[in-house]
């Protein structure tokens, strides 16, 4: 697995942002943005969690380690959490995490927490666009690759021979 650190040479920098959206509000909002055919930057890749309270700060650093230039977390508005208070737990973690990564030389602006309700398709679009612009301005996140003489112990899947049989048009 490569620790991607910079944009392909020559081409303009297209940041890669990993988004963790809660199932009930922000993920639904981005479905709504879709059904409303709103257009926004394609730099965000979405991972669905049941609740922003499921967001383990380790996921955020893992995403950065995997090459994300920023991480966007979306949850229900305060008071609206489908699970009552998960979004507050997320808020507390992100608050401290942003300070910690800041000390470690990573701009806190690369980590963003937003409350986006199921009906706020526009807000989703605007937040994504705003964050992409901000991360573009910050430039690529350069994390030094971690030397792994033990070999990358990541996924031990082998590639089972892929068949190209009868692919229907």
């Amino acid at each position: 697995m490569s620790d991607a650190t910079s944009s392909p040479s020559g081409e303009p920098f297209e940041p890669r942002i990993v988004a963790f959206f809660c199932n009930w509000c922000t993920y639904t909002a981005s479905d709504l943005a879709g059904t409303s055919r709103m257009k926004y930057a394609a730099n965000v890749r979405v991972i669905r969690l049941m609740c922003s309270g499921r967001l383990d700060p380790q996921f955020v650093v893992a995403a950065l380690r995997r090459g994300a230039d920023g991480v966007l977390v979306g949850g229900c508005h305060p008071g609206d959490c489908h699970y009552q208070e998960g979004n507050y737990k997320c808020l507390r973690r992100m608050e401290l995490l942003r300070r910690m990564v800041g000390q470690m030389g990573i701009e806190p602006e690369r980590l963003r927490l937003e409350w986006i309700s199921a009906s706020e398709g526009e807000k989703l679009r605007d937040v994504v666009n705003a964050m992409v612009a901000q991360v573009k301005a910050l430039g690529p996140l350069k994390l030094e690759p971690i030397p792994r003489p033990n070999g990358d112990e990541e996924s031990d899947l082998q590639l089972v021979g892929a068949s190209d049989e009868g692919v229907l048009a």
Partner: protein
Amino acid sequence: MSKPKVGFYWCASCGGCEEAVVDLAEDVLKVVAAVDIVFWPCAMDFKRSDLEAMADGEMAACFVNGAIRTSEQREMVELCRRKAQALVAFGSCAHTGGIPGLANLCTLESIFETVYGDGQFSTVNPEKTRPQAATQVPGGGVTLATMDHSVKTLDQVVPVDYYLPGCPPPVKLIAAAVTALLEGNLPPRGAVLAPDMALCKECPRIDSKPQDPFLREFKRPHQVLIDPEKCFLAQGILCMGPATRDGCDHACIGGNMPCTGCLGPVSRTRDYGAAILSAVSSLVDSNDEHEVAAILEKIPDPAGTFNRYSLPSSMLYQSISANGNGGT
């Protein structure tokens, strides 16, 4: 049959790990009787050549402590790796980077400036002299080992078979590891030779920990008289116990001070600092954005507190110089 050969080597360390071995006390003699110590620069005059003379894998085990920051250390651990069947990362520094790993919060140049800059406290250095890799002196040149821009863990330099965690590793764990080695019943490679369980399990204070969100205010150890019976977190004092491996007989807590995390994470943790950060911050008893921030502000040094011993092994590794950001 001949006794198994064992080596000890230190890289970027403070000598505490060798002291920990010496603290086997009477057992040192047993160990010495059972194994053949063929390399131990701190206590014996065997040299690199003895090592080089060995056949590959001749040592049953080599215990390496200290983090790695110089080319020289790299060469030596590569040599140790070759000569040992089992290479053991001994102590926090070799395991997760240790206290010296905090240096990864700053650039090498900033270290030099702080230490050798003219007028820095007692330093008088108007010529701005800096230690040089090579210096010409009458008769020839003297050389100094050069330093890498970041502190590395042992397994970031060579493959490691086992880890003995702790700063220093608890004598109990050292003894157990040596016994396992002698009896040839070591766990699967890659294992950390300590209980795969967090400290709270054995903590005598766990019963005094509340079961509802309670962190209204963080207090620093010097600001309060610490209750010697009560859970530190319950007193608002940061304790790394919930995320930290057991095996130390909660020595620090016995000294009425909180766990600072030297035994590192349990096997299921991917990033120690982020893990304990999550546990601590989640327990803050407020839902107001500003109040939450205000409460957490009372933790003056998240990076240095949650990654006190684990910066080089954190997933963010050495971001300061790489990302070109200032850091501290």
